[in-house]
């Protein structure tokens, strides 16, 4: 089947990508747009690694066809903050140890960002319910729940104009740097 040009609106930018009808959005984002922060794990809807936001809601890009995504507003992990800073959710994953190998992290971060936009102060049970479709083989989840809780609290403090409590200051710069890279999903 010949390739077709599709216009994808990702992170506020417009990408023209040549795709086959059967290409998934995950593939188009990674290979077409070069946005490799979105990961492909199971490719079958079971792990949540490929989660991106479509119109603000978390969607599995491995079970979405790229051609279907024309005209949608898509956000990926790369669009959460500029290249120089971390989004508070990424920051919290790094400082709480919510990311180890990091492969699942972009998916968790995107799901968590969507949750916190809807519900600024979710309970731990609400966090667990929201991340039920994201799998992590490293952390054991407790630190991920800690991270989402902390991110919510930091974002509320920032909204109220207060300085968020800082954590992880004792980390040496190298470790902090590596964690940030993992949390950014790049």
């Amino acid at each position, binding site marked *: 089947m010949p390739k077709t040009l599709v216009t994808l609106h990702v992170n506020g930018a417009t990408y023209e990508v040549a795709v086959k*009808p059967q290409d998934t959005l995950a593939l188009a984002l990674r290979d077409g747009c070069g946005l490799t922060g979105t990961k*492909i794990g199971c490719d079958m809807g079971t792990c949540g690694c490929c989660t991106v936001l479509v119109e603000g*809601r978390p969607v*599995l890009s491995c*079970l979405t066809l790229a051609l279907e995504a024309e005209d949608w507003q898509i956000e990926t992990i790369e669009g959460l903050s500029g290249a120089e800073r971390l989004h508070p959710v990424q920051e919290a994953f790094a400082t709480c140890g919510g990311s180890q190998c990091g492969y699942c992290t972009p998916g968790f971060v995107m799901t968590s960002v969507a949750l916190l936009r809807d519900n600024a102060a979710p309970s731990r049970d609400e966090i667990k319910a929201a991340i*039920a*479709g994201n799998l992590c083989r490293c952390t054991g989840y407790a630190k991920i729940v800690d991270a989402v809780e902390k991110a919510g609290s930091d974002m509320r403090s920032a909204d109220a104009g207060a300085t968020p409590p800082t954590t992880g200051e004792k980390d040496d710069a190298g470790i902090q740097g590596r964690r940030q890279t993992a949390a950014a999903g790049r």
Partner: protein
Amino acid sequence: MMILPEFELLRPRSVDEAIAAARGASGRFDYLAGGTDLLCNYKWGINTEPTVISLRHIADLRGRDGGRVGGGVTLGELERDADFLHDYPVFERTLDRLASPLIRQTGTVAGNLLVDTRCIWLNQSEFARQALGNCLKADGPECRVVKGSTDYCYANYSGDMAPVFMVLGATITLAGPDGQRTMPLREFFVGDGIERFVKKKEEIVVSIDIPSDAKTLRASYQKFRVREAWDFPELAVAAAARMDGDRIAELFLVANAVSTIPLWLDDVAQKHVGATLDDASIEEIVADVMKASKPVRATLLPPTYRKQMVGVMTRRALREIRGDADAGAQPGTQPGTQPGAAA
């Protein structure tokens, strides 16, 4: 990475356009909604077609009005619909336990009703299936679950919405080349794991309609699954009743995920109309529902255990309908997840 096979993708904007596209494909097509079932099966190489017709861009399939739910409404939209959940509270827990929030985000109501039957033999990679030898449902000579069956597939119906819609008395409306038709949802499901329903291939599920008197039914859906975060049902029981004082005036029962279709247990339900919902009567219904459920080894857990758990789930459903505070409560880790530990 799982590779999707090559196909042509059509994106009609209306039901009529979609049906015309389907007729043009001479039977070699599949409709696509949220894609959370179909694309998985395609990635597994199960019964793929050269043309895929997306229903995602058809506004007429969207929206809810009272008890009328458009086929294209997503499960996520429904679980955020406070008015709908207020009118039909049984859906709150049904949806909460259906797949994962990420699947519910795009998975649709129609896609859920038509979700393909599942089987431990079939739902594997093409490589594994070929190594084991293809079965009846994938153009092989015979069923692997029930050896010797050359004309009947025993794959398990695994959708969670249909049994609940059925006990609430919902109807389904289909649009096809010959116009629209509406039928009770309980008459929609027929046949084996390949045939599954009366829908003709070109027909599109336009809507599901729950009658307004269903608002006064007391209903419960009790699902048993291996994994708590998300999982398909290993078995489930849907029940709804209208009480007249302490007596059952009307009773509707479905045993789900123990057969190729959701089992509409009318005989069992009718037999117990007029009974009270005391413990002894509940046990009689439990025994009858268990007797009517004949699971086979198409899922992870052994059939004898699943049959036993049908009894447990029936009891919980009826106790919830009776109003027992903790009847339907299913803690994080379910009792009896291990065979032999049923309670």
